[in-house]
């Protein structure tokens, strides 16, 4: 059982003893059962920290932001940045370490185990508890959980309220932690790749309709990319919103940037953008589900990444976010890699 007071105490200590520069954690959101990212510098502010099923965001994105700032200002990192991380979040940190974007010494990881639970899916909550204003979620050791509302506790099966990724979660226990709260429990609600099964079984044309239908809605706000801790490229190969241009960049370098897709939001270019992103996340995505959560037009982006995750596991026996010392999926091969698709 995770007690927020313990986390607060630890956070306070770290800030008091100047062990960390600041702490990235969760605070109570303004409407309903929601949490917001918070950045705590002062020990006394640690009281606003919360830990509950609404702490859905993957805060490691803010480690990336911090690092980018450092690189821009060529500033040396003095103290590590503290972060409160769920199991999946620590896996994304693992990939960032594997790809040497972050250095272990620059982060202080306060891992929190999801134990029997996980985080809730705001959309599911809104649907199921319209108007009921759920206040808290209590996980018992079963696959049912209790939603505390002003009308008392309501018992619902986990899959009706948990985020898809939590239902399929591989391991609810964080890794690489400096501190860890909660215990390591084995729990399985559904198969790892349950969510894509349905689509995989559709005939090709229906699959196309499904994805075309979704991706033509894309407005290229790039929230999926901006929220993704793995999307730390300064300049995206397709339709960048930030350019790695300095006064050393030559005119030619700037003039000859390849335009793989155009700015106009055509279905084709939207699709290509997402395909490239998916491929670039193959073997790197750790399924924190943020891309899908933030998408304003509800594109099930996660299901694209999930397919790559499945392929990586089934074809190459590769799982991302568990080993920070091995080469990445596409920078490695085995002699016995499948090649039956090759003529």
């Amino acid at each position: 059982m995770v007690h927020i007071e313990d986390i607060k105490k630890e956070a306070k200590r770290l800030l008091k003893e100047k062990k960390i520069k600041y702490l990235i954690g969760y605070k109570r959101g303004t409407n309903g059962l929601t949490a917001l990212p918070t950045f705590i510098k002062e020990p006394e502010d640690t009281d606003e920290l919360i830990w509950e099923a609404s702490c859905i965001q993957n805060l490691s994105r803010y480690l990336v932001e911090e690092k980018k700032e450092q690189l821009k200002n060529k500033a040396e990192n003095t103290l590590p940045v503290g972060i409160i991380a769920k199991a999946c979040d620590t896996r994304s940190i693992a990939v960032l370490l594997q790809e040497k974007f972050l250095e272990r010494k620059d982060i202080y990881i306060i891992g929190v185990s999801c134990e029997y639970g996980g985080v809730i899916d705001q959309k599911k909550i809104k649907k199921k508890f319209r108007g009921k204003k759920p206040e808290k979620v209590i996980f018992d050791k079963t696959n049912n959980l209790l939603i505390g509302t002003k009308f008392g506790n309501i018992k619902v099966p986990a899959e009706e309220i948990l985020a898809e990724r939590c239902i399929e979660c591989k391991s609810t226990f964080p890794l690489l932690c400096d501190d860890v709260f909660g215990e390591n429990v084995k729990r399985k609600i559904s198969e790892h790749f349950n969510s894509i099964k349905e689509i995989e079984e559709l005939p090709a044309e229906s699959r196309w309709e499904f994805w075309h239908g979704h991706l033509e809605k894309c407005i290229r706000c790039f929230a999926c990319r901006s929220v993704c801790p793995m999307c730390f490229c300064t300049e995206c190969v397709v339709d960048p919103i930030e350019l790695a241009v300095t006064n050393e960049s030559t005119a030619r370098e700037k003039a000859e940037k390849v335009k793989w897709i155009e700015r106009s939001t055509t279905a084709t270019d939207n699709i290509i953008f997402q395909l490239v992103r998916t491929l670039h996340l193959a073997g790197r995505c750790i399924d924190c589900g943020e891309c899908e959560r933030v998408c304003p037009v509800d594109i099930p982006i996660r299901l694209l990444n999930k397919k790559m995750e499945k392929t990586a596991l089934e074809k190459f026996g590769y799982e991302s976010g568990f080993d920070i010392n091995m080469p990445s999926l596409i920078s490695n091969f085995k002699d016995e890699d499948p090649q039956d698709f090759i003529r």
Partner: protein
Amino acid sequence: MEQYEPRIIAFLCKWCSSAGSDLAGVSRMKYPPNIIPITVMCSGSVSPLYVLSAFRNGADGVLISGCHPGDCHYIKGNFYARRKILLLTELLNYIGMDEKRFKMSWVSAAEGAKFTELAKDFVEEIRFLGPQNKLIRGN
């Protein structure tokens, strides 16, 4: 009305497959001109972006061909290609692109005949599928 002629891009590695297609020429084998070869240094240098870009610019089919495993002029480039291409194949298939439109093959410098067969078959397959209109620019 005239017959539909597929447009196919073939990324051939310089040392094996391109040489193989040269051999097909030297031996005066015949295959349809729908295949436009683009010689690359190594199959391992073909980025998925190339493939998508080919489709986007109107290719009805894309072929990537490299040296047989173990024969790569660059020792292991084709092994990396094999991984990347499998991922791309799976993904294209997943979103409902006809998987037949995207092929990978091993063709050695000695396999002019194989290249010819491959080319013939591929063109026919694509001809059967008809024009690719899913990833066309502007749609």
